[in-house]
């Protein structure tokens, strides 16, 4: 994430805090941002405004995992390693064997890995609870 982009993110965060002060502010970064970078940028702004930080959730696209692991491993691990929660998304589109391979592969990088399907609701309650508390 470049300096100007980080600065824009901090400015928008301040603007939203001051104008609306939402209960929750979700950040949806580009696919190229790693979690530590995001943590650093998210903490910027604490000097001027007050807010709580986290969790940092990383979605690992289940059906795309083989490609991501093969071609974009550094980026994938950069997103997985420092995340508070890793969810294997579109889990309804892969079978149990594939899910198991993903679990075994990422196990050493994250102890907080769950399977998620927005379509059938699997894992959703856990993600909601972790992200938003008891809503």
């Amino acid at each position, binding site marked *: 994430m*470049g300096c100007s982009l980080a600065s824009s993110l901090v400015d*928008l965060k301040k603007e939203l805090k001051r104008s609306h002060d939402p*209960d929750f*502010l979700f950040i949806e970064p580009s696919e190229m941002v790693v979690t530590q970078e995001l943590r650093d940028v998210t903490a910027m702004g604490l000097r001027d405004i007050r807010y709580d930080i986290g969790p940092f959730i990383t979605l690992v696209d289940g059906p795309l995992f083989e490609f991501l692991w093969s071609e974009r491993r550094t980026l*994938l691990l950069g997103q997985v390693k420092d995340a508070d929660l890793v969810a294997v*998304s579109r889990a309804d589109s892969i079978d149990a064997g594939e899910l198991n391979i993903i679990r075994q592969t990422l196990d050493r990088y994250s102890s907080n890995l769950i399977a998620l399907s*927005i379509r059938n609701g699997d894992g959703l309650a856990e993600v909601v609870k972790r992200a*938003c508390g008891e*809503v």
Partner: protein
Amino acid sequence: MRVVSVSGARGSGKTSLIRELTARLSMKGKSAAVIVNEQGDAVYEQAFIQAHELQVRTIRGG
């Protein structure tokens, strides 16, 4: 205000998850905003934004 981030590859379901979370929060009377580092088309349509009183801001590039 609590800042929550949802990262992942394009098409991994970031927007779908955030939509799900903001809709649930809205039903419970909680307010939400989203900062999107958008690389493609707009992903939060006006009807959804209005229905859930969602604040959406976009950053280009990334």
